[in-house]
């Protein structure tokens, strides 16, 4: 599988930690993406992502339409991957 150009959007407390709204990556699966995210943002490694997996309490959404936690999820060029807290209590 070849790498695709994707955008990660940081929402809620994840955005607070990162300090900006989004970042671009080249990755083929979520596993690779979370690994890259953890490397680029050490403040997220062990907190939101850990060794290519999402930590409990966090969730990814593909283009805002479908939630997934699977690290094997394949990525397509132009995907927007939302990274957010799974707790929607209001």
């Amino acid at each position, binding site marked *: 599988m070849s790498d695709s150009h994707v955008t990660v959007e940081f929402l*809620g407390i994840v955005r607070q930690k990162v300090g900006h709204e989004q970042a671009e990556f080249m990755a083929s699966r979520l596993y690779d993406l979370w690994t890259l995210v953890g490397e680029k943002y050490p403040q997220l490694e062990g907190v939101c992502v850990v060794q290519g997996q999402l930590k409990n309490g966090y*969730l990814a959404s593909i283009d*805002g339409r479908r*939630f997934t936690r699977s690290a094997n999820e394949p990525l397509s060029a132009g995907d927007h991957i939302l990274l*957010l*807290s799974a707790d*929607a209590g*209001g």
Partner: protein
Amino acid sequence: MNAATPGYFGRYLRVDLSIGWSESKPLSESVLRKHIGGVGLGAWILREETNGQQLDPLSPEAPLVFTFSPLVGSPLTTSAKFAVVAKSPLTQRINDSLASSHFAIAGKKTGHDAIVIVGRSESPKVLLITSKGIALHDADSYWGMNIPATEDSLKTGFGSHYRYAVIGPAGENLVRYATISHDGRHAGRGGLGAVMGSKFLKAIGVAGDERIPFAHPKELVALSKSVSQKSFGAATEKYRELGTAGNLLVFNRLGTLPTRNFQEGQFEQAIDLAPETLTLSRDKARKSCAACTIGCEHLYSVEKEEKPVRLEYENLFALGPMCGVGDADQVLKASQLCDELGIDTISAGGTIAFAMECAERGLIDWKGYEFGRGDTLLAALEKIGDRRDEGDLLAEGSRLLAKQIGQGSIAFAPQVKGLELPGYEPRALQSMALGFAVGTRGADHNRSGAYQADFSDSVDRMNVTEADVSAAIQTEDEAAIIDSLILCKFLRGVFEDKFIEMAEMLSLVTGWDVDGGELRQTAQNIVELKKRYNIEQGWTPAEDTLPERFLTSALQTGASEGAALPRERLERLICAYNLGRGWSEEGYLSLDDCVDENCVD
């Protein structure tokens, strides 16, 4: 005191305001074990006190029930809460609302597990309750005061050793969604403030000094320390860092943020209202309820030197995007006004947004009722508080307002059973849609946490199927126990198995040998008890639905574009929910409940 059941006093106080009389009534150990406290015990007492009658919720005979829980007074974090239960003047069905803080502890220490108010005074009163008895004082000088002024004056008049639950002008004027407030928190939904106002009761002050015994105090302290420790972790971080208002931008991005009376799922000015933005330009403070280690309350200044305003997601959505208002100052002021007048923000915002849509469609001729008009929003709230001009109609809620307006407007009145929807777009969050439809108190995100399934990878939130309804049942059961114990729902993320861990808490407090299985059964019993009360009050299956708008039109914009919930799908979900609960397809608990001769089990 009932020494046999630690955590409880084994009795409730019944106050009849018509004759100024109170008596203590026993609560058996089996009743307490089956209903725990909070909403469970409150529902049981309400049904007992109602005795099968269909009372007008604003009549003197209608009971208003305050309940505590076995955990109140313990060192368990977030346990200082009380429930208020009554028949709602907004829905004509059961209503159970929760509020927090010192009123719960001081009230329980009067030596009662619950306080029931019946009757009506001849003139406004303040009811003071101590361990020794009750006293009724004239409240003429407080009548008409807003909530903060009332609390301040009561402290000056009767002392700050009392903790007060009070109503504002909205409760006095029988606004059908008036709140009961304590220390800035509200038993907010369903109009219980109007029930209190109908009794001419401005405030209840409680001050007790009874000791609350616990069965295993050492182990309870150890468990409490461990839960508190976990409450500092990742599971509650959202609440500590941003508060519930942190939902705003997330929901907006997902296309699930109700906008302009649910016509859209995305609001173009959301960024201006988000806590992430407000933090940059305003003074900010953080507060907690008593005995809470999380502290989710985030307050923002409106103007320099003014008291900061508490902002939560539901206030923000209802007074902002729902009314199309994107000016943060106006939304904060509206929120403050609701707090002062004692008005439920969700119902107020929903009803005003509905009126704005009616005006824009030309169904009513109300000046200024256009989406985005923050000045209209603020003026409408003032008028609702004293039922002035069109405020008198708005004070009835969107269902009755739609009845007045007619012309098919009920199709887009944002309510279920009369209760206005909270900030979760049901077409795009379809587990929650089911929770809204079947909820005993109407459209509600607190008694059904089905949105948790929608915010997971276990369901397709825009195409939920019968196979997914177990999540709605499970989260409703969890809420029934959390709200009966009573703990804060924002703590739920710290538990690995909620039923087992909550059973341990209850066992350490009471000495009962409760396990997770028993709590699951208790949850089902509590849900059924509320349903049974509703059936006795005239519930029919036709009430378990959503407004026509959600069943006949799809979302047109945002990430949830195209999300639709056809009527047949919702009906199939409701049927699966009812069967999953062990009820008839229509939702009757047994054949005996059905008054329709065509009813089939």
